C-alpha cells in the first residue's frame, strides 16, 4: 500500500508539472501551429532565473510573478517577429508548420547556448521546503507538493480564462477554425501571439517550480520538450483539458516505470508515443 501510494501520488505530483509544461506546448502547437522544439528552453531559463533570484535572497515561489510575465512578453514578441512573418510568407499551412519547426530548432540552439554561456554545464540546486510529509506512510517533500499545487492552480485558472472571457473564447475559436474566427473579427495574428506568449509563460513558470524540488542544468530543456510532445499527443492536439489530464497520466506511468527500472522511464514515453500514433493518433480528448 505504502509503495503504491509512493508510486501513484509521486506520479501525480510530477504529473502536475508535466501538465503545466504540456498545456503550454498545446497552446503553441495546437493553436499557433508551431511545433516549438525550444519549449523546454523557456523552462530551463525560468528555472535558472528562479535559481538566480533565490541565490540573491528572493523567495523562490515569488519569482513566478517575475518569470511568468517576462516569459510571456518574450514569447509574444518572438511570435510577432519570427513566426508571424513566416506565416504570412507561407503559401499554405503545411509550409508554415515545417518552416516554423525549423525556426524553433534555431531558437532551441540559440537559447540553450546562451544558458550554457551564463550558467555553464554543471548541475545547480538549492534547498527549499525540504521537510517530508507522510501521506499514508509514503513520504513526500513539501516542495514537491507545493510545486504540484501551484501547477494545478495555474492550469485550472487558465482553463477558466479560456471558458469565461472574451479573449479566452477567441483563443478556443482560433484553435478550431482560424479563418472563421477571423471572420468574426478576431485579430488572428494577435491571438496566436497571445497563445505563444502564454505557452512560453507556462514553460517558464514550470521551470521555476521544477527548480524548487529538483536540480537543474542547462541541458534539462529538451527532455521536457519530449515529455510535452508526448502529453500533447496523448491528450489530443489542441485540447487544453486533454493536456492537463494527459500530464497526470504520463506522470503516473513514468513513476511506475521508474520504480521498476529507472533507466527505462524515458524509453517508456517513446513507447507510449509510438503506440498512440499507431492506435489513437487523435489522443484521449481529440476528435
Amino acid at each position: 500500500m505504502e509503495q503504491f501510494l509512493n508510486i501513484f501520488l509521486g506520479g501525480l505530483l510530477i504529473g502536475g508539472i508535466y501538465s503545466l509544461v504540456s498545456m503550454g506546448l498545446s497552446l503553441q502547437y495546437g493553436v499557433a501551429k508551431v511545433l516549438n522544439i525550444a519549449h523546454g528552453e523557456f523552462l530551463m531559463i525560468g528555472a535558472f532565473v528562479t535559481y538566480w533570484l533565490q541565490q540573491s535572497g528572493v523567495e523562490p515561489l515569488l519569482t513566478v510573478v517575475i518569470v511568468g510575465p517576462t516569459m510571456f512578453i518574450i514569447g509574444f514578441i518572438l511570435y510577432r517577429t519570427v513566426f508571424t512573418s513566416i506565416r504570412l510568407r507561407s503559401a499554405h499551412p503545411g509550409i508554415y508548420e515545417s518552416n516554423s519547426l525549423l525556426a524553433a530548432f534555431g531558437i532551441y540552439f540559440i537559447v540553450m547556448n546562451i544558458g550554457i554561456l551564463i550558467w555553464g554545464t554543471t548541475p545547480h540546486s538549492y534547498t527549499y521546503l525540504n521537510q517530508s510529509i507522510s501521506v499514508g506512510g509514503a513520504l513526500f517533500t513539501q516542495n514537491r507538493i507545493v510545486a504540484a499545487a501551484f501547477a494545478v492552480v495555474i492550469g485550472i485558472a487558465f482553463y477558466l480564462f479560456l471558458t469565461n472571457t472574451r479573449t479566452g473564447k477567441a483563443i478556443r475559436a482560433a484553435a478550431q477554425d482560424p479563418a472563421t474566427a477571423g471572420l468574426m473579427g478576431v485579430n488572428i495574428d494577435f491571438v496566436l501571439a497571445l497563445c505563444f506568449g502564454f505557452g512560453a509563460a507556462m514553460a517558464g513558470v514550470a521551470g521555476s517550480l521544477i527548480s524548487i524540488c529538483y536540480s537543474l542544468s542547462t541541458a534539462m530543456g529538451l527532455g521536457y520538450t519530449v515529455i510535452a510532445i508526448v502529453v500533447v499527443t496523448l491528450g489530443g492536439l489542441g485540447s487544453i483539458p486533454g493536456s492537463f489530464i494527459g500530464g497526470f497520466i504520463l506522470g503516473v506511468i513514468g513513476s511506475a516505470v521508474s520504480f521498476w527500472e529507472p533507466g527505462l522511464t524515458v524509453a517508456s514515453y517513446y513507447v507510449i508515443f509510438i503506440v498512440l500514433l499507431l492506435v489513437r493518433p487523435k489522443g484521449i480528448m481529440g476528435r
Partner: protein
Amino acid sequence: MLEINNISAFYGNIQILWDVSLKVNEGEIVALIGGNGAGKTTLVRAITGLLPIASGSIKFLEKEIDKLPPHIITELGISHIPEGRKLFTEMSVHENLEMGAYSKPAWKKKHETLERVFKIFPRLKEREKQLARTLSGGEQQMVAMGRGLMSIPKLCIIDEPSNGLAPMVVMEVFKIVQELRDQGITILLIEQNVRHTLEISDRAYVLENGRVVMEGDCATCLASEHIKKAYLGL
C-alpha cells in the same frame, strides 16, 4: 450602401474576377447567382477583406474598405455568414453566438442582441447549452445566421444558406432571410437555388466566368431566356 466598382482579383497568376461592378442599396435583398466556379466566393472574399483586389474599388457607407483587414470590416458593419456554416463545432450554441459579437462595440450589447436573435430563432434558445456539432443541419444554419446577426450588422452577406438542407428547411431559411430584411438589415444573398432566390430578392446579378453577365430586377431576370435555360432548367 455597398458599392463595388470595376474590380478584378487574382489567385496567384489566374484572374478570377474581371471588371466586376455591383451595388447594394439600403434595405434591399440583392441576389448574386452563378454556377460553381463563377467567382461568387472570390467576390465575397474580396468584400470581406480576405483577398486583396488588383484594381477597382469597394466602398461601404461611402468609405473605401478594399485595403482594410477583415476584423475592421466586420466592425464597420459587414457580416458574412459563410458557406457551409463554419460553426465552432466544439463550442456551445451560446458560445458560437457570442463569438459573432466579438467586435468590441457588439460585445457590449451582446445580451440585448442575444435576446433579439432568440426571438428570431426560438429553437436556438432551447439548444443554447448544446455543442454546435450535435445540432441538425437546419439548426446549424440557424446558428450560423444568428451568429452573423450578433455583430449588429448593417449589411449581411449570406453565402449559400440552403446548401445541403432538406427542402422543407430550405423554405424556412428563405423565410428567415425575408424576415431579416423586414427588420432593417440589408442583404446580399448568394445562392445556387435560383428560383427561390429570385422570388424573394429585389434585384439580382448573374456572375459567369468572373464577369457580371446580367443585372436587373428579379422579375426581368426570371423572364429572361438565358436564366430560364441556364439556371431554371426550363
